[in-house]
């Protein structure tokens, strides 16, 4: 089981003897990772729509253009396929590009370069070339942006061998995982979450890497293992807090990277608790939590299950505009509390 430095304590305050770490917002943490990578290595550069003077559609690149210039923080026309293809080419030819796509929904425009080119070139060429590139894009609902600006598309990417897929849920991971993604010689899709951009947390000042492929244990518990991704991690933690008050001990695991996936940590936890609740914002059918469910039931944890493996997901519908509908379309804290409580009490 891997417990990382940014793991939140099961309860109570952080050890007061420890030095109070500096806090940043998630978006500041992403920016700091890019700045440190660009400062350290001339090959690293950022490009995308409105990443320059505008500072990025969600303000993530901020002042980077003033620090690194328009050559390395490069505005592009609205041409997602061209942008991602240019990153593939730049990566092949020796650079370390970071591409920002304004909303993860617009990776659809760029899908040929992502799935047919970036993902496959290293393999198709028998290992003779690498495509070291990072594609950052925010996903998720909750901002009233409706069906074409709110999707959670991680399963699309996770289904393509050759891509690595990262979903940071804390500010520290937003920085540490992005640095690992930039180091990586493969194309890495980093799916940020719009609702997390303004959330703060402790972030190391040094360019500390968080390795790809380590599930974080956000909270330990003995009755049920909740596995959650993206914005669902903080919702699961809030739910676990409420469940504890009800006498239910829920652990919360955050895979952080879907490819490579550290399923060991998940399987071990489920073997110990006997119950798994898998929570994602994306629609249920064909979602990534189905993969995690399959890994659990294919593992020796199967024999220890005391309840059916259960998924709590977004509705099988596009994300609607109206706030009350948008809320109803994806799991909320109450839903997690109810479902986890049911699993424990019924089985």
């Amino acid at each position: 089981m891997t417990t990382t430095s940014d793991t939140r304590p099961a309860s109570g305050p952080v050890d007061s003897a420890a030095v109070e770490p500096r806090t940043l917002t998630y978006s500041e943490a992403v920016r700091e990772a890019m700045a440190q990578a660009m400062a350290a290595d001339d090959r690293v550069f950022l490009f995308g729509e409105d990443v320059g003077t505008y500072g990025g559609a969600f303000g993530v690149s901020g002042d980077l253009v003033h620090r690194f210039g328009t050559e390395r923080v490069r505005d592009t026309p609205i041409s997602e396929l061209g942008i991602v293809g240019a990153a593939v080419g730049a990566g092949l030819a020796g650079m370390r590009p970071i591409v920002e796509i304004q909303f993860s929904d617009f990776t659809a425009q760029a899908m040929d370069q992502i799935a047919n080119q970036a993902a496959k070139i290293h393999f198709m060429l028998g290992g003779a070339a690498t495509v070291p590139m990072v594609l950052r894009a925010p996903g998720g609902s909750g901002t009233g942006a409706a069906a074409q600006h709110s999707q959670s598309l991680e399963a699309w990417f996770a289904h393509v061998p050759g891509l690595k897929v990262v979903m940071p849920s804390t500010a520290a991971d937003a920085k540490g995982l992005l640095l690992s993604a930039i180091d990586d010689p493969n194309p890495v899709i980093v799916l940020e979450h719009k609702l997390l951009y303004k959330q703060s947390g402790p972030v190391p000042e040094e360019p500390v890497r968080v390795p790809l492929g380590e599930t974080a244990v956000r909270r330990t518990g003995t009755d049920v293992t909740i596995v959650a991704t993206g914005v669902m991690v903080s919702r699961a933690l809030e739910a676990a807090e409420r469940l504890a008050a009800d006498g239910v001990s829920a652990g919360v695991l955050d895979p952080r990277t879907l490819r490579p996936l550290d399923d060991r940590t998940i399987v071990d936890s489920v073997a110990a608790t006997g119950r798994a609740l898998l929570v994602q914002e994306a629609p249920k059918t064909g979602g990534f939590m189905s993969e995690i469910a399959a890994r659990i039931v294919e593992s020796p944890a199967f024999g220890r299950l005391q309840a059916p493996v259960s998924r709590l997901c977004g509705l099988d519908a596009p994300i609607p505009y109206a706030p009350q509908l948008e809320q109803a379309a994806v799991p909320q804290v109450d839903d997690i509390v109810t479902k986890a409580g049911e699993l424990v009490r019924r089985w």
Partner: protein
Amino acid sequence: MTLTTDPESARHALTTMWTIRRFEEAVDDMFARGLMHGTMHLSIGQEAVPTGACMALSEGDYITSTHRGHGHCIAKGAKLDAMMAELLAKETGYCRGRGGSMHIADVATGNLGANGIVAGGVPIAAGAGLAVRMRGGSEVVVSFFGDGAVNEGAWHEGVNLAAIWDLPVVFVCENNRYGMSMSVDRAFNVDTLAERAHGYGIPGVTVDGNDPQAVHDAVADAVQRARSGGGPSFVEALTYRWKGHSKSDKNLYRTREEIESWRERDPIAAFEAAVTGGGATAGAATAPALSASDVEECRTLARDRVREAIRTANAAPDADAATLTDAVYAPAGEPIAGGARA
């Protein structure tokens, strides 16, 4: 049709432009007061383009629209209360609160929809044109899009399909000088976007997009060509967006002076001056199309229509979450001919 001399056309054009302006101002205000959700792209300053273009269309003609689509929708004849209800997340909205600002469509008036995807409507317009052609219709499709859309692959593919198949489509570019923060000067290596048309072998013209007459004339020409089997055309209308791109825009990429210089070229003020005879019109002296009190009437009518729409929308029931998954798939309808049941 001469918008500035024919009283009925002048009245229609002016009322439409004021309705768009008042609608957008109301949305801006409600948004600022937290009464509206999501994000909004306002078309204040660009009212002459949809107004002039849609006056060149007939009933049954189609449009495809954009994220900045309220003006297109209004100019094509949509109901203001159903638009407002959509923005206010009501069950009576055009999309029952599912779509919001970026997805308003009014299929009854031929508006095939706003679009959250830049250039998303361009190949769709080509397809609608193909349908018209294949079923032997005489309708025309106008596809509205911004300058930014012209650099999307979808734009090029859609325009080329319309060109090679001679489809009845008019591509209307609202060149407001920016795609978010990216200026046309930085995004293009050509002097006018209309030049792009030549690469596809179709006519392309650039007109003053703040003059509804100029837009109307260019689009009317193109519509006539399309309707008579002459294929698609491209009309570039030069205009300017007064407001930020959306609510998150801090306007860091353009100067106050630039914005001010375009506000001085207010399409509505210029049109009012022209129709009341204050404008410099070439040719013989004609009686002004509208009097000062006519103009006042148009303004009042626009204001009242928008107020009424807000009142009606506010009184409507909220969109209902219980039926959220209802409309994901269409119910089984009439099968195609020649089917046999298993």
